[in-house]
């Protein structure tokens, strides 16, 4: 039961969505863009979110795009995690998204919604970081295209009234060797203790992590260390751990100590799987 009433809008174009937001915001309706809606609906039940108007982006065609061309592939922000998984378009993205929540929820949860989540995990962002995706962001002044590295820093840094339209990345990434490993406290469906996503490119293995710190990240510095093949894997991981961007979190899912240990062995497994054996 959501104890407050709100209006529901379903714009058909990017422009319409942006102008609706501006108008509703002026009217003090505290509008929210709505995609899968799972987080808004559940947080509203707990009084952790309030709005008087939601703008559903699922009728905006660009937000629903899924194309794989010779050079680029494009994923609309309002594609559900299940759709992306089932399409097989980018297995690393499909599988990482496929570890989030359960199938019923993933039929609703969208790519854009997950990466803009208020939760700390946002695991669907990991493959986007690894593939150096560009992000198309719609706002009052039109649609801009920004490399994700400039937009995502702990969370998506977008302005008031802006929304994510698409993620566009080099199609070459879809066939590169990858790993996506999610370790949970006990159950098959749960938030991660740690999720490790990795992509083996020609210039080395890229790593991105969720669950370890209180935000998902890809660290160039840690990546450099993890690729120093002259060192044994264990030593590289130890050195990389010293370069974490924030403290390892400890909560009811796992203590910081155990979380770090699980991250260590998972990263070791990933290195073993993706690194050509000497």
């Amino acid at each position: 039961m959501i104890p407050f009433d709100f209006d529901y809008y379903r714009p058909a174009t990017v422009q319409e969505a942006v102008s609706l937001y501006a108008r509703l915001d002026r009217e003090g309706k505290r509008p929210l863009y709505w995609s899968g809606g799972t987080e808004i609906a559940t947080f509203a039940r707990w009084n952790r979110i309030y709005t008087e108007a939601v703008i559903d982006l699922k009728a905006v065609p660009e937000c629903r795009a899924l194309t794989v061309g010779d050079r680029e592939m494009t994923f609309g922000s309002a594609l559900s995690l299940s759709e992306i998984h089932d399409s097989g378009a980018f297995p690393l993205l499909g599988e990482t998204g496929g570890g989030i929540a359960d199938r019923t929820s993933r039929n609703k949860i969208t790519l854009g919604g997950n990466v803009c989540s208020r939760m700390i995990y946002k695991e669907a962002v990991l493959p986007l970081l690894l593939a150096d995706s560009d992000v198309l962001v719609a706002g009052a002044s039109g649609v801009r295209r920004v490399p994700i590295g400039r937009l995502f820093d702990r969370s998506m840094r977008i302005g008031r009234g802006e929304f994510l339209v698409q993620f566009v990345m080099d199609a070459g990434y879809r066939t590169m060797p990858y790993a996506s490993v999610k370790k949970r406290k006990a159950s098959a469906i749960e938030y991660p203790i740690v999720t490790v996503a990795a992509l083996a490119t020609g210039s080395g293995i890229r790593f991105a992590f969720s669950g370890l710190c209180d935000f998902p990240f890809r660290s160039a510095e840690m990546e450099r260390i993890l690729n120093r093949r002259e060192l044994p894997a264990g030593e590289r991981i130890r050195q990389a751990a010293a370069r974490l961007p924030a403290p390892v979190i400890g909560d009811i899912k796992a203590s910081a100590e155990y979380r770090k240990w699980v991250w260590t062995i998972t990263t070791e497994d990933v290195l073993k799987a993706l690194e050509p054996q000497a």
Partner: protein
Amino acid sequence: MEAIGRSVPKKESFDKVAGSAMYTADRIEPRTLHARLTISPFAHARIAAVDASEARRSPGVRAVLTGDASDVLIGEEIRDRPVIARDRVRYNGEIVAVVVADTEAEAMRAANLIRVRYEPLPVVNDPVEALRPSAPILHEKLAEYQKGEGVVSIPGTNVASIIRVLKGDMDRGWAESETIVENRVSFAPSDHAAMETRSASAEIRPDGHVIIETSTQVPFAVKKFMARYFGIDPGWIVVRTPFVGGGYGGKTAIQLEAVAYLASRAVGGRKVKLVNTREEDMLTSPVRIGLDATVRLGSTRDGKIRAAQIVYRFDGGAYNDKSSDVARAAAADCSGPYGIEHLHCECLTVYTNHTFPAAFRGYGHSELTFAMERAIDALADELKMDPWELRMRNAAVPGDTAPTRDRLTPSNLGDIRTCLNRVRSLAEWDDWQVRQVNEHTVRAKGIACFWKNSSMDTDATSGAILLFNSDGSVNLVTGVVEIGTGTKTVLAQMVAERLRMSVDRVHVKFTVDTLDTPEHWKTVASRGTFLAGRAALKAADDAIRQLKSIAAVVLRADPDDLELAHDKVFVRADPAVQIAVKDICYGYKYPNGNAIGGQIVGRGYYTQRRMNPLNPATGEGTPGPEWNVGAQAVEIEMDTRDCSYRLVKAISVNDAGKVLNPKGALGQVTGAMAMGLSYASREAFYYTDNGTVLNPTLRDFTLLRFGENPEYVVEFIENPCLDAPFGARAMGEHGLIAMPAALASAVSRAAGVRLNRLPLFPETVWRAKNGGIG
């Protein structure tokens, strides 16, 4: 045609799979008002002030109730609990205020507007803390509370109940023991997590009838206790319960019914409906009991256990309700299925600032079994003896006595040895118990066995009515609540078997309505098929007698010469002389229009023989009718680096007495096994130092999901209970009982460290392995 022993599909399944089965909260009536709760964010605090003025002004609000709405104290064993907290809250989630409004949304909005000023008090966060001399006392008026028979409290402490069970001569037991081990186990409370959250509605009719609809396992107890609590003659109370979406014991406590009643009273008797949110169902409504226990065993060198000293410290939560009775059930069967001559058990149920417990599938037995079986494994280690062999050597047999000093017989005791033999073979126990699969992977097995008696009131009774239809079919009416166990289908099988008719022509009434349904004590303790089964068979016999009586007139034969079968009554020696049941079950009409007789109504009841309560000072008594048994095994595969593990196989061999419905029994045992594995591996509430719950949602309180189940192997042996219908033994809870112990045994073996705390999270195992506490 035989109905018993056949996998008759559950009669309610058709409605359930079509989505048309109705549960308590499903009925929507425009005239119903809705209640929502304001609950305490503190585990222990004084309520300094409640400001409901803004809530009262909120649109649609009809009434706001706070603690001063009633000074009645409720609770089954100890009347220690206000319906709405008065002056003080004792657990996180306790009801502080109730808003009644035209719609649920309006009620919820207003409930959010109630401002409560709390003054936090020091908390008691587990049963061991509760027993420290310096612990805050949660119930200063413990001495004044009304208590049930056999409840001994210690006023001035947090001990709500103390029970001692004494048997034999401990000095002799220890003297005869060459090896002594002591083992301590503990686990925190967890949730029942039934699919249907609890709900209730109440209405006080202009003529004075109080109509309660509730998702309960105990509609007749609701009637009895509501009458007692609020001074109403029972005849004026009508309780209705449709299908219940899973109970597991959690729907045995009376809570929302009393809230809905007060709410209805506050709005002139209009119908008020209250439905728990999932979070309230986890925080506000009762949970599974927690335990801290120490078991000390003395044994001869060849593994004969001579003495057992057991101390239970049950986490009785903020209010007693049934927790001391769950504890009593554990104490009564504290030895587990072993013949131990010298025994001493001290069983404490203590108040803590946790949500109060209700019954939970197994009623104290998975708890006692975990404590005892972990100690048996420790003893096996100490003796360097195969843990299967140690169990076999000590298995209770007819002629032994139970801790209650009841004599065990082939009928009142299941066959433990055969169960153990079968599990040994099914688990391939002798082949290996632990083995390395590869560098980081180990497989291991664990075994455990159990017994369980049913705890019940000594005068617990069950009745049944059979009403014939004009087509010769019958309607079976019993007070058993259909909570998903398929009991009513099994009862229909019994009636069909006795009436020698098709089970398809036995219709059952699912909704229990205390106005017209014969009483069934409670749908608990795996007693449905036994109590209601005996009653239904008596009702069938009564109907047969009536059918023969009228047939005798029509056929001009002595009733003793008649037989009933295939919807006909006929002369045994000359079956050609016969009459169809449909022609006599509504009376008989002669060709000329004259008529005799009327609708046949069979009735029957059953009360268990020679039961008496447990003496809390000695443990003597007969609080339950029979000890049903089984042996179980679990196989896991562990990654030895982070101690994460996968459930590979779970095995249960149960003495079923007689399997009445094979698929139904398989479903019951398998479901119970899954529940046991789930709570042992992952289910527990996390409390802050301040006693508040960190995970009152299914996001953070995880359950075993469909794809995580191991391979289940379930086998039944049939050693009949002579009192039971067709010899069938209790089955509903028994698949769960030894699962936590068997899992702990397997995980301990894989990790190479003795684990005694639940849940067995990989991190818990990892810590124990690295020198922490298991």
